[in-house]
């Protein structure tokens, strides 16, 4: 019924005020008032019928009650969902929009004020999760990611896998329509699933599908708690469309308290045994992987290593130990050790073994035959079986379940108790030896950096050291991994603070780099730090839209590309295969791997996304001026990219 028609109908107030001695109330009884009905009456007007009530009009908007019920919801469920999310200290939600969560989306904006959490627009869900991954490694707390539970999670899956492998918390919120009778035809059916979390279930810690708003509140508390309990990881909460969009109703709602789990500490007896072995060892060594959660973790490891005068091998999971410390040593020290301590080592088997990449893959012991291995970590406390990121089975001589950082204070106490005067004296000799070795390693790295210094394509050493000259006096932070650029940052930059290096993807899923860098940069923004991203060209091609997100949300980030014109790792794999088959070694490595003919113009891509850019640079002497200009842009709070055509590694 059109509004105009309704206005011509009887208005309730008019009806009441026009109730006269003529007895207009008779109309409600089905009789029309007539002029013949004259004279005053003492009869009270009858109450309006349901039909009349349904046809009543709001005085201001002329909506009937039925209209209001059909058109409007005053207190949608998703408003309460926002209340719950806000209670969890989630500052941002990365999202690629979708109708299955339009309810929550609107509530976040218009009810929640788009602040804490703030929505970050992402052109791809893989980017959205990878941003959350990089962010969490810097901020020490998760973001949420909001997407379609079906097609959105499908897009996001690889990034979720990376976060799972890397043990990083991400809260995944997926929209879905569970009630088949409530779905609109077409898209809502294609975007619905019985078990929408199934896409990612093999590599998330936990998932749930709340059936009520109270259930949602409890699920979110549990999701956050589980995500943040070591081993940390991504979790999923599904959001039913009807639950978001319907009114909250009369059920009283409350938000439960969040009870974080205290990190587990290793068994006291086992820790003491480990301390005895380490103190008694002639050549103890420490290998730390995803050990340090924060600066305190690094500081504890420094104290511990100095007690023993044991070298620390920094595996690539996190920054666990300052590389400027004389006890920061190379992996070769593990082959000389008689007791090896692995701290959150994802692959303890490889601490003492290797397997060759030959036709027949024979394992080989790389450590001393009688070297003993102690592991401390949470890996055994939670595992899944389908994806094999847990690496090869290894029988450690002493396997202690516990968070390594949380266990270190106990281990330090135990080592101090076990320490003897003889060991303290011999430790002085050890210290001297390690200082000499550390100094030589640094000198060797500086010497190696000379080679190809003036080459074109530009050497990766040149890229890193030119960058270093610009950032050295700033509060800088690397938000990328340097493994494929000959590890120049770890060899030559002073990595001394936990936030200065965030490690790699975990699952080696390419496409992680650019969005993780933007996510890390987002976390650095509030501290006023200068985030630096050395960006691989192949990785950038996966989700280049993240540079739009960085430009739109004003996330300052200095990006320099390591543009070696292709997927270089696979060049080498193909060369190895060609060698093995004794054919094609003079060129087949480029087929299916090269990004050439044409070469993607990464500077134009970034500029097209609204990001300042320069390049491609092939002359190393042009590098410093371009970097200077880029740094000015970043200092003004915006992202900048310099494309540099580089040597392969």
């Amino acid at each position, binding site marked *: 019924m059109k509004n105009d028609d309704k206005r011509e109908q009887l208005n309730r107030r008019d009806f009441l005020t026009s109730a006269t001695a003529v007895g207009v109330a008779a109309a409600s009884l089905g009789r029309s008032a007539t002029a013949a009905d004259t004279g005053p009456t003492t009869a009270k007007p009858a109450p309006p019928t349901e039909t009349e009530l349904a046809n009543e009009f709001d005085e201001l908007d002329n909506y009937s009650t039925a209209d209001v019920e059909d058109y409007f919801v005053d207190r949608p469920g998703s408003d309460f969902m926002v209340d719950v999310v806000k209670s969890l200290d989630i500052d941002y939600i990365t999202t690629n929009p979708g109708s299955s969560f339009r309810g929550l989306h609107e509530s976040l904006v218009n009810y929640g004020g788009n602040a804490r959490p703030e929505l970050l627009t992402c052109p791809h869900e893989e980017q959205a999760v990878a941003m959350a991954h990089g962010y969490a490694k810097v901020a020490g707390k998760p973001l949420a990611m909001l997407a379609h539970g079906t097609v959105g999670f499908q897009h996001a899956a690889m990034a979720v896998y990376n976060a799972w492998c890397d043990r990083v918390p991400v809260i995944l919120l997926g929209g879905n329509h569970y009630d088949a009778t409530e779905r609109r035809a077409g898209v809502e059916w294609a975007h619905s699933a019985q078990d929408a979390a199934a896409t990612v279930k093999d590599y998330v810690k936990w998932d749930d599908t709340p059936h009520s708003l109270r259930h949602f509140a409890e699920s979110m508390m549990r999701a956050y708690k589980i995500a943040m309990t070591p081993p940390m990881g991504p979790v999923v909460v599904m959001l039913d469309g009807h639950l978001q969009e319907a009114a909250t109703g009369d059920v009283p709602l409350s938000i439960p308290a969040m009870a974080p789990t205290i990190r587990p500490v290793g068994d006291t007896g086992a820790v003491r045994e480990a301390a005895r072995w380490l103190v008694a060892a002639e050549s103890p060594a420490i290998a730390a992987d995803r050990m340090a959660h924060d600066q305190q973790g690094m500081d504890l490891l420094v104290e511990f290593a100095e007690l023993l005068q044991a070298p620390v091998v920094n595996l690539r999971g996190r920054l666990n130990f300052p590389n400027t410390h004389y006890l920061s040593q190379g992996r070769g020290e593990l082959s000389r050790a008689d007791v090896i301590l692995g701290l959150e080592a994802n692959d303890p088997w490889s601490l003492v073994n290797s397997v*060759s*990449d030959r036709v027949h893959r024979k394992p080989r012991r790389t450590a001393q035959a009688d070297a003993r291995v102690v592991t401390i970590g949470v890996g055994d406390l939670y595992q899944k079986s389908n994806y094999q990121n847990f690496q090869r089975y290894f029988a450690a001589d002493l396997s202690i379940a516990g968070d390594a950082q949380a266990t270190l204070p106990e281990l330090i106490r135990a080592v101090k108790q076990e320490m003897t005067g003889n060991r303290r004296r011999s430790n002085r000799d050890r210290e001297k030896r390690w200082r000499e070795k550390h100094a030589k390693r*640094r*000198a060797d790295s*500086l*010497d*190696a*950096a*000379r*080679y*190809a*210094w*003036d*080459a074109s*394509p530009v*050497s*990766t*050493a040149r890229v890193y*050291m*030119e960058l*270093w*000259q610009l950032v050295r006096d700033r509060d800088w932070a690397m938000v990328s991994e340097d493994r494929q650029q*000959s590890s120049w940052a770890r060899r030559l930059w002073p990595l001394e603070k936990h936030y200065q290096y965030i490690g790699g993807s975990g699952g080696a899923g390419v496409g992680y780099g650019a969005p993780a860098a933007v996510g890390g940069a987002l976390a650095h923004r509030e501290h006023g730090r200068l985030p630096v991203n050395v960006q691989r060209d192949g990785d950038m091609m996966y989700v280049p839209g993240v540079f739009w997100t960085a430009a739109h949300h004003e996330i300052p980030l200095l990006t320099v590309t390591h543009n070696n014109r292709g997927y*270089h790792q696979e*060049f*080498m794999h193909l*060369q*190895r295969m*060609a*060698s*093995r088959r*004794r*054919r094609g*070694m*003079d*060129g087949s*490595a480029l087929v299916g791997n090269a990004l050439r003919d044409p070469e993607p113009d990464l500077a134009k891509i970034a500029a097209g996304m609204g990001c300042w850019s320069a390049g491609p640079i092939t002359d190393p002497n042009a590098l410093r001026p371009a970097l200077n200009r880029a740094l000015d842009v970043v200092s003004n709070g915006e992202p900048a990219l310099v494309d540099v055509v580089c*040597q*392969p*590694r």
Partner: protein
Amino acid sequence: MQGRSGLAAVAAIALFATGLTSGALPVFAAEPDPEPERGRALYLEYQCWQCHGYEGQGGAAPRVASVAYPWEAFAQFVRFPNVMPAYPPGQLDDDRLRLIYTYVRSLPEPPARDQIPALRGD
């Protein structure tokens, strides 16, 4: 323990040091090739640059520039490597390998560290 390749390379270096040559390995001509660019073209064609860098500076594999490998050791490493793919004679014959070796040996020494401000280590 090193495999066959590592031991063979060490043996080749030892043989070279004593002035003997192995009958199984090609003998390097006394005069260097006057056209090292031929060797560079082959260095690129056979993808050596993928791992060793365009300038032999290394990267995914060790540096080969400014490393005084004797010819016998170089050939041994290429034919019977430890980690890198093997280049058998049927894929890369001795003449071509020798040209690559000549090119690698001709790579100039880079500037000293104290001539590069960014590498002065401060």
